[in-house]
């Protein structure tokens, strides 16, 4: 026994004398009146052995959750990564996350707050020298989603699962300050007898007064009918993206254009992620076209890029107005690549289309989206107060219900949002922050019954999906921070019009409340060791992280406890 203890101590001492250890612990608990309950424990453990000419590293993520805040329950190891790294070579086994170029072909992500994980379990290899980089990947990816297309929809628990085996390679060359890359990826899905082949090329160039990037992709999806006498056509899709940034003194103008036609479908099946086997894969992300808003109401109003069918333009102008104030002007416009209509006397299920030009269309039958967001940010003259103030306009058609000679009906959303935030360091002990957001939003069906060719006797109507024609939303938050240790926060959100009409009786996750209040306090034991207590309600809605969005249900009148600690 003594011998074993001695050996263990010797081994441990030897190991730790050469090993780098880091742990991050996170414990979360929530309990609400509407059964939004969860308890989760996460432990991220990093062990690495550093040598002069190589490094061995392991990262293990353990999760015990029953139920988790979002996703499926876990009990044990959630992810791991074992890696060997030296100057030129890396070899990884475990949960691999790679991004090739700017992600049009492969951008593997793990957003735990959205239960969105597109990592693959398998192998990852990288070889690089001064002028080239080769990435190779092979492994199983398992993504999951909540969709209303299938039964048992629950916004917190996925009901649609996709298992894929993917393998491929990416090679890129550095020439001066340019990077030129080529990639191919094969993705097999046994369950649906599917195989996808993706190829891409890209050029990324930096120069003194800006940068230029262009990327093209081709995707071919083939479905084998197996023993059934069904013919599944091959689905061919393409994507094109180009962006350019130019600097003029301290000002920067970024403009981008995209045309994605990976899987173009009519309005009836357009959003069916289960049946459309040619759709873009979850491991693909559009390089841009999504603005990551920092404000609550704006984030909830975000729009994801549609890789399957979208033409888009985006412009961003950034610059200083003076030494203390910066301005950001963002304009986005997009539409589908085709305009959709159902002919007179034709059954509503028969849809026809006209291809749009190279530019996004403003016609309602082409799913147009337009957003203008202007933001000022800066400090007061003594640098003690930081502020951000903005204005945002959005106009979108997100569903074409009918576009015939007799009836035109579109599901639309229009909004105007005014966000404001100020953060003030009152003295070395106290810091306060105040946030105010106002929003006017309209969403519903815009319908025109056509009676005559002159349009004089046409009847136009708007049916709101909210209990008022215009929803007026208000978000207020006040927080105070004391000595970098204590933090107190109160928030209030209200609306004049609840969303219960969105509920068709099938799903009780839609929020029918009109106001949500909360109070929370946090204590920082150390710089990365915090305990936070929360009481109150949080409004449900869209939650977006870097272009990935998911509907999150409301948290109604409950408590939350969050504890996180780093053991470095």
């Amino acid at each position, binding site marked *: 026994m003594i011998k074993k203890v001695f050996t263990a101590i010797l081994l441990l001492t030897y190991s730790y004398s050469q090993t780098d250890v880091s742990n991050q612990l996170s414990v979360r608990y929530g309990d609400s009146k509407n059964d939004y309950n969860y308890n989760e424990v996460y432990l991220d453990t990093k062990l690495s052995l550093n040598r002069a000419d190589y490094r061995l590293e392991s990262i293990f993520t353990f999760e015990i959750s029953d139920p988790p805040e979002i996703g499926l329950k876990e009990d044990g190891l959630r992810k791991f990564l074992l890696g060997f790294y030296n100057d030129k070579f890396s070899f990884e086994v475990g949960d691999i996350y790679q991004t090739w170029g700017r992600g049009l072909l492969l951008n593997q992500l793990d957003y735990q707050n959205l239960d969105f994980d597109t990592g693959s379990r398998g192998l990852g290899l990288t070889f690089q020298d001064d002028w080239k980089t080769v990435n190779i990947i092979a492994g199983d990816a398992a993504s999951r989603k909540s969709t209303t297309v299938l039964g048992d929809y629950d916004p917190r628990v996925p009901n649609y699962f996709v298992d894929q085996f993917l393998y491929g390679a990416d090679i890129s060359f550095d020439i001066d300050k340019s990077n030129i890359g080529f990639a191919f990826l094969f993705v097999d899905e046994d369950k649906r007898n599917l195989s996808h082949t993706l190829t891409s090329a890209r050029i990324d160039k930096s120069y003194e007064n*800006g940068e230029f990037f262009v990327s093209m992709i081709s995707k071919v999806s083939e479905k084998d009918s197996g023993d059934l006498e069904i013919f599944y056509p091959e689905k061919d899709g393409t994507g094109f993206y180009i962006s350019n940034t130019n600097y003029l003194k301290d000002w920067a103008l970024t403009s981008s254009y995209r045309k994605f036609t990976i899987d173009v479908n009519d309005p009836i099946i357009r959003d069916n992620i289960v049946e459309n086997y040619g759709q873009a894969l979850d491991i693909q992300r559009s390089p841009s076209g999504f603005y*990551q808003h920092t404000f609550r109401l704006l984030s909830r109003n975000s729009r994801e890029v549609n890789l399957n069918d979208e033409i888009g333009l985006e412009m961003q102008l950034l610059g200083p107005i003076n030494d203390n104030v910066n301005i950001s002007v963002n304009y986005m416009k997009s539409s589908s690549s085709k305009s959709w209509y159902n002919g007179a006397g034709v059954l509503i299920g028969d849809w026809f289309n006209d291809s749009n030009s190279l530019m996004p269309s403003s016609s309602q039958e082409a799913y147009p989206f337009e957003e203008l967001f202007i933001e000022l940010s800066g400090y007061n003259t003594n640098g003690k*107060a930081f502020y951000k103030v903005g204005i945002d306009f959005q106009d979108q058609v997100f569903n074409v219900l009918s576009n015939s000679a007799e009836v035109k009906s579109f599901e639309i959303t229009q909004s105007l949002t005014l966000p404001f935030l100020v953060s003030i360091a009152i003295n070395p002990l106290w810091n306060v*922050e105040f946030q105010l957001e106002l929003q006017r939003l309209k969403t519903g069906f815009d319908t025109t019954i056509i009676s005559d060719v002159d349009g004089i006797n046409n009847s136009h109507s708007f049916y709101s999906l909210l209990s008022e024609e215009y929803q007026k939303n208000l978000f207020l938050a006040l927080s105070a921070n004391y000595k970098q240790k204590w933090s107190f926060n109160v928030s209030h959100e209200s609306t004049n019009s609840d969303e219960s009409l969105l509920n068709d009786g099938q799903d009780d996750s839609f929020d029918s409340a009109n106001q949500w209040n909360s109070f929370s306090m946090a204590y920082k034991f150390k710089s990365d060791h915090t305990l936070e207590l929360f009481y109150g309600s949080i409004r449900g809605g869209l939650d977006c992280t870097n272009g990935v969005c998911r509907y999150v249900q409301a948290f109604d009148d409950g408590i939350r406890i969050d504890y996180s600690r780093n053991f470095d």
Partner: protein
Amino acid sequence: MSESFIKYYGLDIVFRYLILFALIGNLFAQSNFPNNTVRLINNEKTNLHSLTSKVSFVSFWATWCIPCIKEIDKLNEFIDDYEDVSVILINEDKPGDKAKVKGFVRSRKYPIDDNYHIIFDSDQKLSRQFSAQPIPLTLILKDNEVVYRKRGFYLGDEIELKKQLDDALND
């Protein structure tokens, strides 16, 4: 990895020991800054250790993260007083937003030079290595070893950051 797979190969036992190993490891915990190959904002490839100096300031940030921007603004006000400290800002915006990040950095006049670097963490490798989410996560390194780690930022926190830099320089 399915539960049955883990149990079949007896990996559950291995994982339990790993947890134990990790927890005991806390007694000895230290964290070195890895020498990953990274890409700078001007597209050049380099190694992290070629960017660090005796004392280095590292921050994980993104253009949409308000506390991150405040922290960098305050850092830029005082970093000229710390000539021997190198700054590494690790960007966590999505890879597709590289163009926007470059424009943002330019318009904010971030003082990029031989001692002030912005790098992209496109595949989130550094973020995973340091459990960097939620950002900002700030590290102060001495001889490539993490000697201070801080999450979040409020105006006024720069006083503590300066103190930590002074301590690292004077130790």
